[in-house]
């Protein structure tokens, strides 16, 4: 594997029963990666799953500030996410209580986004989500809310094919 491919690799781990951690290195200074989290217009361009349109209704990017955004598809289905920023320490740390609109409501996860300056012009982005229980964590992983299921069943089909289903 070349260095370039390795750099782009998105790694996922489950450090405990109630956590998910996702990491990726970007060939850019930390300030630039930070900007893409701080500016809601930029956030809209990458955070939503593919095929869904993201619209930010509120984005008060500071400790104690709240946010709310909506992902919607062509058929009018909407997925609403909201929460509160607990820590915003430019340019290295964002901690938020993250929720989505759900019936019955589920407790928020605590999401930590760390931007690590690798010292050579690159930045390691480490995001971890901590859930109240293993069931909530696994529920989110399996809901498809965050993954390829919502992005389009075509991708899921491909994967199923590879798994020989």
């Amino acid at each position, binding site marked *: 594997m070349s260095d370039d491919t390795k750099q*782009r690799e*998105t*790694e*996922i781990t*489950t450090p405990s029963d109630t956590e*998910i951690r*996702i990491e*990726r290195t*970007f*060939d*850019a200074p930390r300030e*630039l*990666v930070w*900007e*893409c989290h701080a500016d809601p217009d*930029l956030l809209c*361009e*990458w*955070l*939503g*799953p*593919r095929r869904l349109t993201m619209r930010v209704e509120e984005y008060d990017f500071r400790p104690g500030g709240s946010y709310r955004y909506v992902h919607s598809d062509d058929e009018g289905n909407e997925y609403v996410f909201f929460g509160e920023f607990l820590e915003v320490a430019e340019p290295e740390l964002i901690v938020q209580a993250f929720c989505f609109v759900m019936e019955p409501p589920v407790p928020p996860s605590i999401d930590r986004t760390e931007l690590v300056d690798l010292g050579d012009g690159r930045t390691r*982005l480490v995001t971890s989500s901590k859930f109240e229980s293993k069931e909530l964590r*696994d529920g989110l*992983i*399996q809901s*498809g809310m*965050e*993954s*390829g*299921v919502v*992005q389009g069943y075509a*991708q*899921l089909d491909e*994967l199923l094919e590879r*798994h020989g289903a």
Partner: protein
Amino acid sequence: MSLTGLKKHVRVLEEANLVTTAKRGRSRYCRLEPKGFDEAGFWLEEFRRGWADRFDRLEQIIERRKGESSER
């Protein structure tokens, strides 16, 4: 590891559908369930792909902005 400890571990694996056990005479036989492993791996891999996809787009924005700032 004590027998009680071992039983506990096996029970957890059983609940996660990663092993099945069957009692034969005085012994209990454990069997790995590849389907269980696949299911957990499948969803985690789907989840990872969702994020890999987002990060690809984030990277595109970063590259675009790097270009913009060098033009200034």
